[in-house]
């Protein structure tokens, strides 16, 4: 596979003990569009900016199916299983590949154990894939950080997975361009006993903080999961309702 000159790992240690490629990958994440997640007492909400590069981009919604997974041409929040959703900051194509792999792993787990995959297991397996790409020859790390939101027997959970393959459980977190402002805002606003609707309002306010231009249902995406354990991406109409409430 290619010249022997290039079949070594691009992530070799630097003298200071860092993996430079991973640092660069984190920079790529840091320049991606802001996304955030908040874990409420009875659910999880994840949200992201969706700034299209030009008004000419066609983002017509494709058919909505039984599982309520409408596939917009540009949809940043994706389902991994009926009760686990994911959003990213960073490179869209890398995200697509990871989502595909994670879905397959979740399905294999389900087939083997006849049990819906617990959120921690799926996060761990996705993180393993991301780590493999930091220790193989001829590949580069993924340029995305993921926020995985799920609700299983252990309750609502929110995890962040980094390009290095490390994962963290968060009560509330943000990634991307506006990360420092967003995190400060969340630290101030977060309370342990927040309900899901409060969390959605807080998420919208946090996005608004660093938003360039007018915030509307067309340039943000929100996904939520409640005690019903079904992950849903909110329709533009629902987002408009929440925006009106926040005003």
């Amino acid at each position: 596979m290619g010249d022997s000159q290039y079949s070594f790992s691009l992530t070799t240690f630097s003298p200071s003990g860092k993996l430079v490629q991973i640092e660069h990958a984190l920079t790529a994440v840091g320049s991606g569009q802001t996304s955030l997640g908040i874990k409420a007492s009875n659910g999880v909400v994840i949200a992201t900016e969706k700034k299209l590069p030009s008004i000419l981009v066609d983002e017509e919604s494709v058919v909505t199916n039984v599982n309520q997974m409408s596939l917009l041409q540009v949809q940043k929040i994706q389902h991994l299983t009926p009760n686990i959703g994911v959003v990213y900051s960073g490179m869209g194509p890398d995200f697509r590949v990871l989502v595909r792999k994670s879905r397959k792993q979740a399905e294999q787990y389900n087939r083997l154990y006849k049990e819906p995959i617990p959120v921690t297991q799926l996060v761990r397996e996705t993180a393993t894939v991301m780590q493999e790409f930091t220790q193989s020859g001829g590949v580069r790390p993924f340029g995305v950080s993921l926020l995985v939101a799920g609700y299983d027997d252990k309750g609502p959970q929110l995890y962040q997975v980094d390009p290095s393959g490390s994962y963290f459980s968060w009560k509330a977190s943000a990634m991307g361009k506006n990360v420092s402002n967003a995190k400060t805002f969340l630290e101030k606003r977060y309370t342990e006993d927040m309900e899901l609707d409060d969390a959605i309002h807080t998420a919208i306010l946090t996005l608004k903080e660093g938003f360039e231009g007018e915030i509307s249902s067309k340039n943000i995406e929100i996904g939520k999961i409640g005690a019903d354990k079904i992950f849903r991406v909110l329709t533009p109409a629902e987002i408009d309702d929440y925006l009106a409430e926040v005003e």
Partner: protein
Amino acid sequence: MDLLKVNWGRRKHSLFYYLFLASKQLFPLDLYLFSPNPFRFDQPSSSSRLFDFGRMSQAGVDVPAKGGFSFDLCKRNDMLIQKGLKAPSFLKTGTTIVGLIFKDGVILGADTRATEGPIVADKNCEKIHYMAPNIYCCGAGTAADTEAVTDMVSSQLRLHRYQTGRDSRVITALTLLKKHLFSYQGHVSAALVLGGVDITGPHLHTIYPHGSTDTLPFATMGSGSLAAMSVFEAKYKEGLTRDEGIKLVAEAICSGIFNDLGSGSNVDICVITKGHKEYLRNYMEPNPRTYVSSKGYSFTKKTEVLRTKITPLMERVEITEVGEAMEE
């Protein structure tokens, strides 16, 4: 036909069992029953070499796992049968499964008896398998095969739905199933009736173990298929209503239950329409099982009690602690 394959994954077991058998000096045929798993080439050992006939060159060599079905054990099984070993029978569903298209969609029906030769292994098994929210599949043939194949294709359909964001189509399920069955050349003994309603309308198909398929307005499969088909041929017409359709399917299954030995017990029905499905488990129970006589039992002749002796099975023991308590 991997009937006689026994998995001895652990080296220690093999060695021990060989010594045990050698000491008992059993008929050598028994030794052949415990050959190592052909898919695990990473376990060469002195004991496994003793059992390994014809594949000794591979012991100790790391052979990468290849895809597809390995027919090595089939040759061994044939040899054993020629030597006179009777193959154990596997769980067949000897079955009646039917499907028909009615005005608004598809109705599938099945009996609930699973047989193992002349014995009823399961009096109330489920033969209508879930493939997708809008697609169900009845299975006849070897129970393990139908379960495994429908499970696998159902899993593939789910992944496909996530990728495309659309509902699954019946023709997709059909193609995935027939590709799989054809590649196994009929060794996966699953005869299926696949029905569902998708964006292109209601569909009903039959799939044979070798991988051929039919598209029909009404279909029957299994050992009771002729009994059920006679009912369909006489009474089916296009544009049946839901109730007429259910009645006809129940009649066809009952015809299989009462006239075929391999089918029996209850009737399961599944009605699939656009955007909605109803799984009527045990819709009819024409063979109720009475376990206890409702009248109760009375013994006319009284038996004389000559002697009574009661032996307690548990003894009550008193524990008294003597001496000092143990030091930590």
